[in-house]
């Protein structure tokens, strides 16, 4: 486009023209001076264009430092919130075999679980409404209460182990036949979970929100540690601390655990005993390893039932004081039964999900 017909607007908008006016760029200067010679009739336009350019006001609106900081705060919070939504808990199966098993289980349990969840949510809702109602009697003024409490439930059916990353970054490894439940999003002051069965917890550090695992009346409180809790129905509760410090509480009784220390609590009474534990043995389930060490046979069979998701049926009485020992890493049920049958003198038969055991006289 020829610049011979330039108007004021064109001059103003021509970057080369601006170079001449503002920077006195030598090339631009030479060009526009010769242009003026060739087109003296453009003098007035050029003059006006220059005026516009050099007087163009630049209103620089400043944002205050405080506003800048608080704006960043809200951005940062937005990010945290978003990432919390993203790391939504998911269950990762430890291997494909267990995935298939889980699928089978789920098919049969789906309706029951859904129903259970609903009941749980309703119960919690009722409980929280009740709680807030009683609370509001005292402080009738200050209640804008969030009533919606969504309960998150994760469970590893018998035969399946799973890993869950909670929204705060903590990790939970769930053993077969175990379940955790917690209020979605936790609260500002507490990360409270209920555990049934066995789980290993790697707690993300958060001083302001203690991490509390409840197993019946016993609560285990941690800030940022890793520990194992086993509380299968009918069995004693055992808490084993791997790193950090935890506080174990049952009613008024409490005990602080240091790494390597554990507690075994009876479910019948409130008594417990503190003892050192064998890390390898306690955490063996995470390496798909089953360890029995002078384990009473009925307890061992409970473990097998959970581990493989089977039912074990005794066709005759389990001999008194029958203990089993053995270490089975990633072994099939068949192999474990074979191994145990020699020392414990029994015959077995596998029929689908049923195991029949017959002790030899």
């Amino acid at each position, binding site marked *: 486009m020829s610049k011979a017909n330039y108007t004021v607007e064109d001059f103003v908008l021509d970057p080369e023209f601006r170079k001449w006016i503002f920077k006195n760029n030598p090339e631009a200067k030479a060009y526009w001076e010769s242009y003026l010679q060739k087109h003296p009739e453009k003098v007035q336009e050029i003059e006006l264009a220059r005026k516009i*350019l050099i007087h163009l006001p630049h209103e620089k609106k400043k944002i*205050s430092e405080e506003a800048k900081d608080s*704006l960043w705060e809200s951005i940062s919070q937005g990010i945290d919130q978003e990432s919390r939504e993203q790391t939504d808990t998911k269950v990762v199966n430890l291997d494909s075999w267990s995935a298939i098993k889980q699928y089978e289980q789920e098919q049969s349990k789906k309706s029951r679980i859904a129903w259970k969840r609903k009941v749980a949510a309703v119960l919690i809702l009722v409980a929280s409404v009740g709680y807030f109602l009683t609370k509001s009697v005292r402080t009738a003024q200050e209640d804008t209460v969030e009533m919606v409490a969504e309960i998150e439930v994760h469970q590893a059916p018998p035969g399946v182990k799973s890993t869950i990353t909670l929204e705060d970054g903590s990790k939970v490894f769930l053993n077969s036949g175990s379940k955790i439940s917690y209020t979605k999003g936790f609260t500002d002051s507490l990360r409270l979970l209920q555990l049934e069965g066995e789980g290993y917890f790697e707690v993300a550090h958060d001083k302001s929100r203690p991490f509390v695992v409840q197993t019946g009346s016993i609560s285990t409180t941690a800030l940022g540690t890793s520990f194992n809790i086993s509380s299968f129905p009918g069995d004693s509760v055992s808490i084993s601390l791997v790193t950090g410090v935890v506080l174990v509480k049952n009613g008024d009784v409490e005990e602080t655990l240091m790494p390597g220390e554990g507690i075994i609590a009876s479910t019948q009474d409130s008594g417990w005993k503190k003892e050192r534990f064998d890390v390898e043995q306690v955490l063996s389930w995470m390496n798909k390893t089953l360890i029995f060490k002078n384990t009473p046979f009925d307890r061992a069979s409970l473990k097998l039932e959970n581990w493989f998701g089977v039912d074990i049926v005794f066709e005759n009485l389990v001999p008194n004081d029958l203990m089993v020992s053995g270490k089975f890493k990633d072994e099939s049920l068949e192999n474990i039964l074979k191994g145990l049958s020699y020392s414990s003198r029994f015959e077995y038969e596998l029929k689908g999900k049923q195991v029949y055991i017959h002790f030899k006289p």
Partner: protein
Amino acid sequence: MNAQLQISEEELTYWTLLKEGEQSGLRFFYEKYVDDLFSFGMGIAKCEHQVKDAIQEVFLDLWKYRNKINSSVLVKAYLYKCLANKLFKLAKVDKKNKSVHSDYMEDWELLVESSESKLINIQIESHLKEKLVKAIESLPDRQKAVINCLFFEDFSYEETSQIMNINLRSTYTLAWKAVGSLKKYLS
């Protein structure tokens, strides 16, 4: 290509951090551009709250879509573009209640600083400047934004057209109209 708009080593480092999900990466771009973005945004929207909200959204978007954005993109131009988009959309929504937002302007200072200060020994014709302030004030939002990009943020026509999400010809037309109105105020 404009030298200042090339991706600097520093920006690239923080861009990488950002892509890896480090907040410090985002923080860097926030600290670097928030002043310019605010000033640019105020040129379009006038309401401080709107501009702040839009800036917040822009950075949250940058975070959210960090993995989808091409690494070679100019972060500065990208931020301007997002901000302009959001503010134009907002402007469309509340076209009805188009009021002077001076009530909201609490604590920002108005700095009138003309390009003239770059030049030495030039007579100040303050009445001219006042006229131009009014002239710019009265421009439609999109024309104002184009003028801001071209004259104050030193974006090229290509970059301006990207920021405004319009083609080159329209960019030029908008600018041409804007300068035309300014001219009328002076003559």
